[in-house]
């Protein structure tokens, strides 16, 4: 509940407030960096997302400092690779972009260092400390959040069999009578189990209590069973937009930024369904085991790249909401299309009237068990 209230408040502020202070405050990048390496290896996801980071973070930083950036598109396997690097005693990455659940794993495994919000991160322009500015989004001491994204649904706007009706409720996913056709869902239990439990009639704040019982898991799988024959399971975020565009599926879940590009940039006959969108976070960690010069450089960069202005800048290139409360008022228009980005943010009040907050710690405890059951169910 807390997360949602905070996000709503920041997004509301984004609509009401006007840009508060000047762009291009580069003092953090220009701040002296003693005993710092000249090269920085940054790991991210590739694609449009990495481009938005290059534009908003690394290009201005490189210009101010002369540091050379090496980008590695390995975020999807970051946890496994970092563990292997740490076992081999040779960590080659300096700053790594991961989702919040991976950050929890890395912190648990002792593979990421703790970052002090008071001294190693920039305060908001009005003096609010970084930890307060990030609020609950800073899920642990190792993780510096960057963006809020959501896993949500897109549907085709030209399905004749629906007779003009459009899905606007998450439970329409399970309604094959009113909304016949194939759906695409992510091949993992996270989110799907929660949506199924919710559509079984469980109130939102009891979902995880129900899923903590064997009966709850069985009931969620039984709900998913009702549409199993009509589901195409995806593993890569690009699959749902492709399946929707080709007409292979009539509705499907994916990351909201992917749907944004299919709708706004590629003009596909697709629309968003934001009900019960599942908020998730993406952010930075610094690996354990860097030598001093590299560590200093990584921290120096991170302080700059996660300040209020930089987080707001990123939203010009991709429709993900900045993780700082103080960045929301600064979100402007798309850098190329010129459209106002705020209505495309998952955190926009109109989109966030009913959201699902994915519980990282609950999943950290229960994922092994539920995943075994989910996969066994899939294979049957």
């Amino acid at each position: 509940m807390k997360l949602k209230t905070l996000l709503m408040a920041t997004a509301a502020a984004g609509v009401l407030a006007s840009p508060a202070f000047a762009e291009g405050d580069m003092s953090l990048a220009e701040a002296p960096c003693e005993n710092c390496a000249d090269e920085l290896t940054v790991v991210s996801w590739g694609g449009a997302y990495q481009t938005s980071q290059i534009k908003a973070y690394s290009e201005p930083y490189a210009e101010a400092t002369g540091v050379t950036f090496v980008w590695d598109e390995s975020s999807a396997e970051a946890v496994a690779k970092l563990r292997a690097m740490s076992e081999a005693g040779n960590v080659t990455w300096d700053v790594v972009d991961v989702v919040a659940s991976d950050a929890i794993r890395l912190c648990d495994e002792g593979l990421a260092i703790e970052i002090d919000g008071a001294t190693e991160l920039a305060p908001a322009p009005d003096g609010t400390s970084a930890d307060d500015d990030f609020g609950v989004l800073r899920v642990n001491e190792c993780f510096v959040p960057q963006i809020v994204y959501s896993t949500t649904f897109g549907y085709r706007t030209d399905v004749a069999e629906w007779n003009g009706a459009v899905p606007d409720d998450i439970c329409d996913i399970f309604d094959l009578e009113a909304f016949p056709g194939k759906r695409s869902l992510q091949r993992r239990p996270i989110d799907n189990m929660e949506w199924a439990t919710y559509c079984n009639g469980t109130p939102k704040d009891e979902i995880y209590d129900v899923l903590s019982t064997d009966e709850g898991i069985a009931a969620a799988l039984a709900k998913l069973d009702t549409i199993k024959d009509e589901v195409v399971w995806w593993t890569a975020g690009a699959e749902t937009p492709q399946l929707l565009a080709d007409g292979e599926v009539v509705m499907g879940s994916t990351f909201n930024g992917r749907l944004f590009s299919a709708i706004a940039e590629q003009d596909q006959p697709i629309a968003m369904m934001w009900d019960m969108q599942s908020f998730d976070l993406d952010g930075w960690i610094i690996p354990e085991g860097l030598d001093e010069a590299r560590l200093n450089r990584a921290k120096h960069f991170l302080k700059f790249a996660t300040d209020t202005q930089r987080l707001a800048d990123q939203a010009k290139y991709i429709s993900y909401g900045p993780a700082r409360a103080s960045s929301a008022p600064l979100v402007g228009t798309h850098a190329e299309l010129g459209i106002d980005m705020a209505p495309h943010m998952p955190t926009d009040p109109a989109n966030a009237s009913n959201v699902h907050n994915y519980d990282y710690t609950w999943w950290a405890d229960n994922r092994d068990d539920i995943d075994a059951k989910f996969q066994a169910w899939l294979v049957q």
Partner: protein
Amino acid sequence: MSSATDTPSDAIAGDGIVRAADGTPLKRSLARALRREKLRSFLLIAPLLAFVVISFLLPIADMLFRSVENNIVQDTIPETVQTLASWDADSGELPDERVFAALYQDLQIAVEKRIHTRLGSRLNYEKSGMSGLFRKTGRDVRRTEAVAPYKEWFIAIDEDWGDIEVWAVIKRYSPPYTPGYFLNAVDAELTAEGAAMKPENERIYLTLFWRTLVMSLMITLSCLLLGYPIGYLLSHLPARSANLLMILVLLPFWTSLLVRTSAWKVLLQQQGVINDFLVWINLIDDAGRLVMINNQTGTIIAMTHILLPFMILPLYSVMQTISPSYVRAAKSLGASDWTAFWRVYFPQTVPGIGAGAILVFILAIGYYITPELVGGTSGIFISNRIAFHISTSLNWGLAAALGTILLLLVLALFYVYDRIVGIDNVKLG
């Protein structure tokens, strides 16, 4: 020529020992030369040998070891493990105060080193909630000073410490080696009563092993059926057209795997090229479009296409060496076309079939990218689960156990093949 037959008498000294030109006994000098030659040839293959040992044998040994290794419990909470040894899990009572005191002592050190959460994730593979329990307890150990009695202190932090099953799991997984990963890999688990099968709704690996084997065999068979005529054609066409055909065979071989897999998606999907064509020629109606992807059919079609060159090439190189005069001779002796082929030509191609089939089968059994992309839920392989445990769940012990079983399966099949066909009856050209 003549001097060679004359000289021996000169080389034999008074003691009757044959000597080389420098006076050393010929036997020793020969042995030395032989040794030097052996050393030289060894040095020549040494880089390859070192490469094979370092990049192949050692990783395999490491993987085999990981599937049973379980030092983490003993290394993280040594005192607890020791005091827990005298506790009987079946007694129905919690361990006594000594164990809780030892746990507190161990955790203080572990929290300092930030390794307690690692133990938590390890034990979480066996029981849900362990990782949270250790994370939470670690936080309290760091922040607050514990007061005796420790048992009450721990249970106040999290009531799970009062759960006998939690302690039973710690005790069960405290030895440095465990069969737990292997049991998990065959859908069993370690319980208080020893090994037992998992509940029905969690069994998955045996099904996947079986499916991987059956589907790999089907892929091998379809590669053979499609590849044999092409190999035959290649070896019987005049050189110019054969070369053109060869390029057509190799072209997909040089194309990126992902591109080929995505191309199959475009072709096979319900709104795809093949279905559109079938609808257009009115063979099927719009509602009855065929489902050819995201299932076993998709995996078999895409993988057959990807692995086909590995079947064609050995077949071709073997067929090329078969002289056409054998078949001609058979026919001139009155054999029908079929008899000449089946009794004379086909047996000579068996080494090529063997080589191609083994190559394709072994490649197929370890494939995971293509099944992941086109396999849906019914077309995925055991290797997809191995990849999942390596990169997502980080359960490397289980991944190693699954990998080991897969390796043993392949070796067993190899042995069977050797007994039936004979391994020396395999030719790559």
